[in-house]
């Protein structure tokens, strides 16, 4: 299969399968969460039912522009994922993801609502907390494989985790923020009891809220793709191992989510930056000794 055909197939598969897989993942998540809390939990397909219902709600909005920003948010999250699964440049992917997140934040700011703005500022803080570690992760792959291109990373001679154990731990740490799991679900939370009204999403409703939910499905699959990268190499059975690890990591995140209460923002930024400055730094230092 030549490169172009591969890209077309990968992008098409991501566009169609990612929301399905992401929705299912959310359904499983809710079910496991319920079991951990001693409840039965909703059907696995409940996230889909919720989104379909949101689409049928009456269309109301607080201004003329926020829907536009949310649509852009979704579009650029999808583009990010497409770049990723087409085997693009890791830094390009990170910057596109940043652009998408800025659209979400601006959407919340534009409402001029106190609760949405608090959510937006906390979201921004979270971005500042995880950004260094995400960039260090990309740089780590570059140091190991000499390229930022994902297509070359997955075709490498051995799994990256061997060279990047510190960076992997650091990445999983900030993954809690990215997956919006407690204790770092500061800007928007699935746990109603620890949320300020509805955080970032206070002023979104109906279709717009549904779009945010779909964007998260896309985003979660793409984030799991990041975890996958650490365990994928040219061996034919490595995808099975990598997907298995993704499942374990996601389960770990659910476990943390249900065992931790939301913390203050100071803890989120302090620990994330310390993780980046120690785990990331030391890991890179060791790599430099190997590379240079």
């Amino acid at each position, binding site marked *: 299969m030549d490169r172009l055909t591969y890209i077309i197939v990968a992008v098409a598969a991501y566009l169609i399968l990612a929301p399905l897989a992401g929705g299912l993942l959310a359904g499983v998540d809710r079910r496991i969460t319920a079991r951990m809390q001693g409840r039965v939990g909703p059907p696995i397909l409940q996230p889909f039912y919720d989104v379909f219902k949101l689409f049928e709600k009456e269309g109301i909005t607080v201004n003329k522009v926020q*829907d536009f920003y949310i649509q852009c948010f979704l579009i650029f999250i999808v583009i990010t994922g497409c770049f990723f699964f087409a085997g693009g*440049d890791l830094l390009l992917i990170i*910057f596109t993801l940043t*652009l998408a997140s800025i659209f979400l934040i601006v959407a919340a700011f534009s409402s001029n*609502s106190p*609760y949405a703005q608090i959510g937006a500022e906390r979201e921004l803080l979270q*971005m500042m907390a995880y950004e260094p570690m995400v960039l*260090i992760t990309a740089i780590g792959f570059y140091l190991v494989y000499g390229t930022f291109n994902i297509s070359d990373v997955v075709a490498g001679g051995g799994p990256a985790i061997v060279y990047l154990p510190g960076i992997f731990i650091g990445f999983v740490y900030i993954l809690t923020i990215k997956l919006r799991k407690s204790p770092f679900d500061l800007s928007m939370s699935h746990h109603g009891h620890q949320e300020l009204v509805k955080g970032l999403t*206070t002023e979104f409703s109906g279709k717009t809220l549904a779009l945010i939910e779909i964007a998260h499905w896309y985003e979660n699959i793409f984030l799991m793709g990041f975890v996958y990268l650490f365990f994928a190499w040219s061996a034919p059975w490595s995808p099975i191992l990598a997907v298995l690890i993704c499942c374990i990591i996601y389960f770990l995140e659910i476990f943390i989510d249900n065992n931790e209460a939301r913390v203050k923002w100071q803890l989120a930024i302090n620990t994330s930056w310390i993780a980046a400055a120690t785990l990331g730094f030391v890991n890179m230092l060791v790599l430099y000794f190997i590379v240079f």
Partner: protein
Amino acid sequence: MSTLFFLILFPLVVALALLVLKTDMARGVLVKAAAAVIAAGSVYLAWQYFGSNGDYFKFEGEYVTYIMMGLEIAIAGFIFVLGIKYKKYLASVLVAIQAPIMVWFELNVGHTIEVQSDLFIDKFSIIMALIIGVIGSLICVYALGYMKDFQHHHHDQKDRRPLFFFLLFLFLSAMFGIVFSNNLVWLYFFWEITTLCSFLLIGFTKTQEATNNAFRAIVMNLLGGFGFVLAIVYMGVTYQTIELNQLLAIGMMGYSVVIPAALLAFAGITKAAQMPFSSWLLGAMVAPTPVSALLHSSTMVKAGVYLIVKLAPVLGINPAGIMVMMVGGITFLLASFIAISQSNAKRVLAYSTVANLGLIVACAGIGTAAAVWAAIMLIIFHAVAKSLLFLCVGTAEHNIGSRDIEDMDGLFSRMPRVAIYMVVGICGMFLAPFGMLISKWAAMKAFVDSGNILLVMFIVFGSAATLFFWTKWLGKIMAIMARQENIESKVHTEEIFVLTTLAALTVLVCLMFPVLSAFVIVPYLTAVYATVSALAISSGNMYIMAAMLALIILLIIIGYGKTNKKIVPIYMAGVNTGDDLSYNGSIGQTVSVSLRNWYMESYFGEKKMNVIGNISTVAIMVGVFSLILGGVL
């Protein structure tokens, strides 16, 4: 060569004419016409020398050197007297040391050295000339409207606008001189003129604060000038040359030029307001806003980074290179942190300038072709976006009466056009797919390749901070507030014209940058480095970026601000009174809501960060210079 002379001398003639013109009308006509001529002149220059890979010109006539020397003595005397008059003796002492050295050098050593070429032009100077000629003259046009308001606000004071415009155009003339000079004595002459212009412009309002800040600026820049003088003397005595291209050639042949490179880089560091010298640029904020825009985008600080980027081939892994990259890296990180803690828009912009210059300086310090590519891109994008932002803040300030970001709540509803331009500028400064981010991306890759892991840490944390302070500002102005009066009609037409042009330029440069890279920057790098291996960003990714920008523009055209949904008031903790700013609380009282941004003073306090930055950069410079001197002695 005549175009070069024209660009240096024409602004000078205009400047002198503006000094004697007293009426608004005449000044307006002359400034607009001169700006158009200078802009057209720099475009013509670009067209004329587009095919060249560096042309050098010899200038016959030693009298020019003596005229320059005479003027230098006059300037030195002027500063000396002012220093005594205002009891700022350090400034007087500095000129009293460096002017005699320069005169001694020229009379004893300088005239024995045969100068091959005084002036030159290559693709990098073309880029600089375009920045000075187009953006610099746009700022001068903007200043017309702004200074009318300024005089109106300060009507009790004497109208000193002739002096103001004289200095602006003199500044442009000196900047052209800097980017066209190959003879370092000439370069030094123009360098000192920019120091003098910035000194007089910062002190323009003549308040106590302005005077103090002006003297701080001149002391720091004279310190750098002193380094420059030492570099010239050392070069003249040791290598028998005072030409920039000769210095680079000697260095690239493998001989050590660490001493003059470090001294010149030091001069560049002071002018580019790197730590520990960043405070002069912050102090420069007391001047009228067009001055800030000029200092930050197309003149002064750009002269500093220009010189350091020119030196890049002889920097790299040597004491001079390490000094430059570490000072730049530390400045980038800490200035980005400080910007978070600021609420005054001009100070945020100033710290962001310091940070971005730090990035440029660090790239030049690394000295590889890929790093210099990033540095030149940063210079271009920064010049356009930063001038736009300063001028937007200036216009907003004159109309809403504040330059505090907290007062820019809902600017989108009050001054939609200015707000949109401000958004373009802000996005241009940090967000994909706009230009600055592309250069930051390239810089990051160059840092990783250089093997300097500390620099890598600086850039990843610095980028996170950059993201934070720009987005929180963006959020403030993007907030849509109900029932706001549109006050935009009071803005001068000159101001709107300049803002529109700059906003269009910002977008255009971002759309066109792959072309810019392929036809201007890569040829320049090929001429300098002989071989240019893979660029930091593949051309495929460059076109993806440009395509993403096109997509955003398309999306805005198709869908922005269109909705057929019912518009409802926002949620508040009680019944919204309807204006989205207050609600009915318990026991019938009306509670108003106000929103404030995050400044994280305990993390990123200005004082603390400046102390850390100043101590570490001073330690690095002292260390490097003692190392170099230790090698000599």
